[in-house]
């Protein structure tokens, strides 16, 4: 059962539950327990599974470790402490592991100073990819009582027979930064490792999950605790998310963000960041991408003459030394400002931050709260933050987001369920440790929360795949990674190389070939994928990191461009670095639009409104002011939002909302392409599904390929202008799409899309079909690159239900898209619960601009390949004829 804790234990009760030496040290250091600690000390002491969500500075580490240290101390004093691992702590970040090591070692040393008896001390060890060989040997001979590690290292340790012995007395397992794990395949991988560990040592242990805001909490708790057969393991939820007070504002850098040009906006943004840096001792700036981080650092230095001693970047692409250096400077309070993409979002110890500046929308309420919560030293301080928006849609999004945060409305996460690629890795791992009966293995797997609903048949198909049944007998020597006896219902290890394949290829983060994008005077702008580069022709305009560039030429692994400000991309990107907007937030924005639309239409006459807009003196009317004043916004932001809505109303006549779908037929700037813009503000995960369905429906009406452009705010269908679309045909299109079975139609039609190719490659790599390291040799991504479309085609020849293909569809429908919700929205449209209106515009309306410029693209090719090639042939001949 999952239990949400409501009443904390008293301070005395909490403190009484821990060992006296530790209590004394704790009280001398901290006086009294923090709110989460007043739950956790006693719960963990009683060996309850616990989920603790709390902001930075709320004593999370001791919330989890206090009772464990107390238990181990009691053992230490009673001379019962052996050289065994009693507790495993797992975090997704090596840097965090180093912090934890230090944060436990120092207190323990202080505590032991009070103990004069000669006792065996509690030992702590770190095990990550960085751990040296000699250190590993030492740990094997004399294992630490508390092992600090990463998900990947744990997956290796549970496959080491020698190490397994050392874990036989395990009592506690702690997963930190749960919000970074529970929503992705890395967490799924970890969850399975933990269940395998429990099975291996033959007894259960206390499970503790820690993280920042993570909703729904009971899902997170289930993830931590898992199942025991059909029974859900108990777990207690300690939610201290809101114990730290937050103070934040959405800021528009300029008054008129709708019409201001890029340079003016940029100048204002940097000026504002600089003001904040100057006002405070230490400022932490968050961007949404790594390239964004680099750009901000570069600009702050160049514009305001800061040196490297004042400002530093911190993100995953930087070397470990640089990152450690930055963390150290922050801790010492020597840095004025650090700029980060996501790496400093997690709980790494970085000293006191006075203010957080977020540039652009962080796309979810939870992330906004998490990032802003990095400021303020303890949970008793107020965390201060500003979100500076970069464009008009960003402005509306961030405003609604912070408003939701103020009201404690959180968005939800989902865990990938029954991911077959991750499971393939574990089956290979399991087969190495013993001979398994299929039923026992299936039982263990289903104890893991992400696999609790796994179908037996899917599990069997993985056994068949891994045992090489898809190739002839004579080739299984090389292909098979396990042996599997379907008669006896058993499986086990096969091949000398397999152990190494498991060690060197496990993990869930896919490799990519990144091409550096440079200006011709050699300034780095960001990176694109090799496959995207393959599509670029000289002269093509594309968007990168919020700006547009003209492609000039490419040299080995580098792509040279000229800035092309204000131009509309001729080729939109195939993949977005940005995270998708959450559904809950999308709906909130939709209803905000509705309120604003009602308020704004009460405005003045059309004529005077246009004149005011032109003069730039339009101010929010009374009703709008009421709405906006209640939100955490600066004055510029209020002004800009109102103007944005007024422009849309005056130009298009309608404001799209979550209950009203505006469909706009228009043309692009060059007049070469017709655009059908669906203002469906439901977030990218839903628009991804909807856009493809509508493109397929359009492809069935005309013999054409249909381009799509997907954003959080809507999607665009792109067709050659030779195709004459009318309001009537679009209306027919909507009706046709509404009559389709979404899952079936998408399954049949997305085979040849970019998304399918990319995702299939990821899944094939995770399923050990494409290795990155074999026989001890690293294989570059380039070498792995047999055209993934052709590998997919080859796999289909084996079976359409080949587990890797099945997983690719699952990943697309459930992780990339949100198919169930997209289906519901389609139903709402067909039933009229979501009304729609088709309009025609001469140029795209204000609400559609960012969609056209910054959307993520793909193409739905004509389904009939024979017809498709013939059509190409016809068009090419027509084109050549013209020349």
């Amino acid at each position, binding site marked *: 059962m999952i239990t949400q804790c409501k009443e904390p234990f008293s301070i005395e009760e909490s403190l009484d539950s821990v060992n006296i030496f530790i209590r004394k040290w704790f009280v001398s250091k901290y006086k009294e327990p923090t709110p989460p600690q007043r739950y956790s000390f006693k719960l963990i002491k009683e060996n309850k599974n616990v989920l603790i969500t709390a902001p930075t500075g709320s004593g999370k580490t001791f919330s989890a470790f206090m009772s464990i240290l107390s238990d181990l101390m009691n053992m230490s004093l009673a001379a019962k402490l052996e050289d065994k691992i009693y507790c495993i702590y797992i975090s997704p970040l090596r840097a965090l592991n180093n912090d934890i090591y230090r944060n436990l070692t120092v207190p323990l040393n202080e505590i032991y100073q009070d103990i004069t008896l000669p006792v065996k001390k509690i030992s702590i060890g770190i095990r990550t990819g960085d751990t040296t060989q000699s250190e590993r040997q030492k740990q094997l001979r004399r294992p630490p009582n508390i092992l600090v590690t990463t998900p990947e290292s744990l997956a290796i340790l549970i496959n080491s027979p020698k190490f397994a012995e050392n874990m036989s007395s395990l009592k506690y397992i702690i997963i930190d930064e749960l919000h970074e794990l529970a929503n992705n395949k890395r967490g799924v991988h970890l969850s399975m490792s933990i269940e395998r560990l429990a099975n291996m040592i033959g007894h259960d242990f206390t499970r503790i999950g820690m993280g920042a805001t993570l909703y729904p909490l009971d899902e997170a708790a289930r993830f931590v605790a898992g199942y025991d057969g059909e029974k859900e393991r108990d777990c207690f939820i300690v939610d201290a998310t809101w114990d730290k007070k937050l103070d934040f504002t959405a800021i528009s850098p300029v008054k008129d963000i709708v019409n201001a040009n890029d340079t003016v906006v940029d100048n204002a943004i940097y000026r504002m960041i600089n003001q904040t840096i100057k006002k405070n001792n230490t400022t932490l700036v968050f961007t949404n991408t790594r390239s964004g981080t680099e750009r901000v650092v570069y600009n702050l230095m160049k514009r305001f003459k800061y040196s490297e001693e004042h400002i530093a970047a911190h993100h995953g692409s930087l070397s470990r030394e640089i990152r450690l250096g930055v963390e150290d400077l922050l801790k010492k309070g020597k840095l004025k400002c650090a700029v980060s993409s996501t790496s400093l979002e997690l709980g790494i110890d970085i000293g006191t931050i006075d203010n957080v500046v977020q540039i652009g929308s962080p796309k979810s309420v939870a992330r906004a709260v998490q990032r802003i919560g990095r400021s303020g030293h303890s949970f008793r301080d107020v965390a201060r933050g500003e979100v500076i928006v970069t464009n008009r849609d960003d402005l509306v999004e961030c405003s609604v987001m912070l408003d939701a945060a103020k009201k404690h409305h959180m968005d939800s996460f989902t865990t990938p369920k029954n991911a077959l690629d991750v499971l393939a890795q574990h089956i290979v791992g399991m087969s190495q440790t013993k001979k398994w009966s299929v039923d026992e293995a299936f039982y263990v797997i289903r104890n893991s929360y992400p696999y609790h609903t796994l179908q037996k048949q899917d599990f069997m198909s993985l056994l068949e795949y891994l045992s090489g049944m898809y190739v002839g007998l004579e080739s299984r020597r090389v292909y098979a990674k396990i042996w599997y006896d379907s008669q006896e219902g058993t499986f086990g290890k096969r091949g000398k190389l397999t152990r190494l394949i498991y060690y060197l290829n496990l993990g869930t983060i896919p490799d990519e070939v990144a091409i550096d994008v440079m200006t011709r005077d050699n300034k780095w702008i960001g990176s694109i994928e090799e496959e995207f580069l393959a599509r670029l022709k000289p002269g093509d305009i594309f968007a990168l990191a919020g700006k547009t560039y003209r492609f000039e030429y490419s040299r080995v692994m580098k792509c040279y461009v000229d800035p092309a400000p204000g131009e509309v991309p001729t080729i939109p990107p195939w993949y977005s670095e940005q995270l998708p907007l959450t559904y809950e937030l999308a709906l909130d924005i939709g209803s905000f639009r509705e309120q604003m639309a009602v308020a704004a239409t009460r405005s003045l006459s059309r004529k005077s409104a246009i004149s005011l807009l032109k003069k730039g003196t339009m101010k929010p009317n009374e009703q709008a002011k009421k709405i906006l004043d209640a939100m955490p916004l600066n004055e510029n932001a209020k002004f800009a939002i109102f103007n944005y809505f007024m422009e849309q109303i005056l130009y298009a006549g309608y404001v799209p909302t979550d209950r009203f779908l505006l469909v706009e037929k228009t043309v692009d700037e060059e007049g*070469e392409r017709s655009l059908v813009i669906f203002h469906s503000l439901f977030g990218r995960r839903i628009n991804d599904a909807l856009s493809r369905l509508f493109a397929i429906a359009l492809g069935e009406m005309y013999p054409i390929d249909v381009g799509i452009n997907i954003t959080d705010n809507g999607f665009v269908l*792109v067709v050659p202008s030779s195709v004459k679309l009318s309001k009537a045909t679009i209306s027919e299109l909507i009706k046709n799409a509404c009559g389709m079975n979404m899952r079936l139609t998408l399954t049949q039609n997305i085979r040849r899309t970019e998304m399918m190719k990319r995702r299939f490659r990821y899944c094939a790599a995770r399923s050990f079909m*494409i290795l990155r390291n074999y026989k001890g040799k690293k*294989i570059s991504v380039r*070498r792995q690159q*047999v055209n993934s*479309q052709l*590998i997919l085609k080859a796999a289909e020849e084996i079976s359409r239900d080949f587990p890797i293909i099945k997983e690719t569809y699952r990943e697309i429908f459930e992780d990339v898209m949100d198919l169930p919700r997209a289906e519901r929205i389609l139903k709402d449209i067909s039933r009229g619960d979501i009304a729609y209106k088709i309009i025609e515009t001469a140029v795209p309306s204000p609400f559609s601009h960012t969609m056209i410029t910054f959307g993520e693209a793909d193409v739905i090719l004509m389904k009939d390949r024979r017809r498709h*090639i013939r059509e*190409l042939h016809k068009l090419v001949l027509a084109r050549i004829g013209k020349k």
Partner: protein
Amino acid sequence: MKLDGDVEILDGLPLLHIKSLSALICSDLHLGYEGVMADRGTFLPKVNLKNIKDIVKKGARLADPTTLIVNGDIKNEFSDVHVEEFNEFRDFMTFVTSETRIKRVVLIKGNHDNFIDRLKKPLGFEMHTQEATLGRYLFFHGEELPHSSAGKFLIMGHVHPSISIFSKIGAKEKLRCFLYGTDFIGRRVIVLPAMNFFADGFSVNTDQDLSRLAPIFAKGIDINQMEALCLGEGEILNFGNIGKLHNIEI
């Protein structure tokens, strides 16, 4: 598609049929490819041989030849004959001689076909190391220039030609093709597409330098004057001269 009274491309297949030789001509099979890739850590499902058999079977049904000419790269690995290559090679030979009326298999050695001389006897094929003139046709693989001045019609493989077509809405389609030129110092030339399932081809109409791959394009043949005869579904489509297809966008 008939090229003249004696030579035709079989509809939709990467195969040439020469009546006077009673021969099917194919190129770049790279048998054993998946096995070689598996040894390097990419475990591709095995489909290449099966796919090649299907193509040859279709071709044999259409043209009823007695000879099969493989214009180079029947196998893949440079350094040795991999066990998977041997197995597939043998399988392929058995298939050809038992399931079609083909009696004679001629191999023009390609740059991948090292160390196969010793298989000639046991597997029963004819081999020419550089090039071969059969009737009025000069067969050569293509990594080197042809030496012989004999032959009115040059037949080559090696480059795995295909063309790329970009579309305004952002798609890119790659089509395998024959390259066909009618005047190379008075001789005709045709370049065969790859038979290999996994070789989607080398785009000859984008900014890639073909002459480094095959010297004949540096010495004598203007690629721009050659026609792209593309493999459609069950048909061959003439896309016209490469010169006009340069980075084409529709």
